[in-house]
């Protein structure tokens, strides 16, 4: 069962990461940003925006399945820790730099997400499956 959760968390992170990478490529290809129909047509006229849709839909259903079975705390953390995978992939794929500010900021944010995950775990311990579907 542990392996099932782990796989679910990884799948959730994978879908979220796919969505963010796709958003970035879709946005870059649709530049310049303008509040116009032309911009919308550029966004929806190339395949990456649909990668973002797939990532979102996939993440949604994985999240719903996880909430049914997995503890809420780790699920919450996993649903937000894609910042780590997205950062690493942006350095690799888009030649972005891990500046000091981004590194320190990321550490604080990750620590915060872990705290919030622990808080959720604690709160839901006595009635683990009391209201999982409300998210």
């Amino acid at each position, binding site marked *: 069962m542990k392996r099932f959760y782990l796989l679910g968390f990884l799948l959730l992170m994978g879908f979220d990461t796919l969505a963010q990478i796709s958003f970035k490529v*879709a946005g870059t290809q649709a530049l310049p*940003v303008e509040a116009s129909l032309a911009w919308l047509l550029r*966004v929806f006229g190339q395949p990456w925006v649909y990668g973002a849709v797939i990532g979102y839909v996939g993440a949604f259903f994985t999240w719903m399945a996880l909430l049914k079975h997995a503890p809420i705390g780790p699920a919450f953390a996993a649903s937000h820790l894609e910042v780590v995978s997205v950062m690493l992939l942006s350095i690799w794929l888009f030649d972005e730099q891990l500046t000091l500010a981004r590194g320190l900021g990321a550490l604080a944010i990750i620590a915060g997400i872990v705290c919030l995950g622990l808080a959720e775990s604690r709160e839901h311990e006595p009635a683990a499956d009391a209201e999982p579907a409300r998210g």
Partner: protein
Amino acid sequence: MPAEGSISTLVASLWLLNIVLDTGGQLAFKAAAGDPAAGDGLARWRHMASRPWLWLGIGSYVAEFLVWIAFLSLIPLSEGVLLGSINIVAIMIAGRFLFGEKLTRLRVAGIALVALGVAIVGLGT
């Protein structure tokens, strides 16, 4: 593409708009799903569809989708996802004020750390 290291007014506005739409959308869904008069099953969905909350939520999410694409196209992705973490803070604070959700000490610590991290990233650009 603007040089790395400069946050323009447009980027800041898109960031703020994203917070408003994300928080507003989640609260609208919460209001739609939490309505005790809604009943069960198909009747519940019909009830939700006949009231504005569900549609407000869907509309917010569609708008947020576009705002987020525009936002990310203007700044590096690694910075964008970090700055976007502020949504976690916004929704928890909104939940506290609107639904009286408890803020335990651990939650306050988590919120403060995420906010601190976002501030470091934002000021460091």
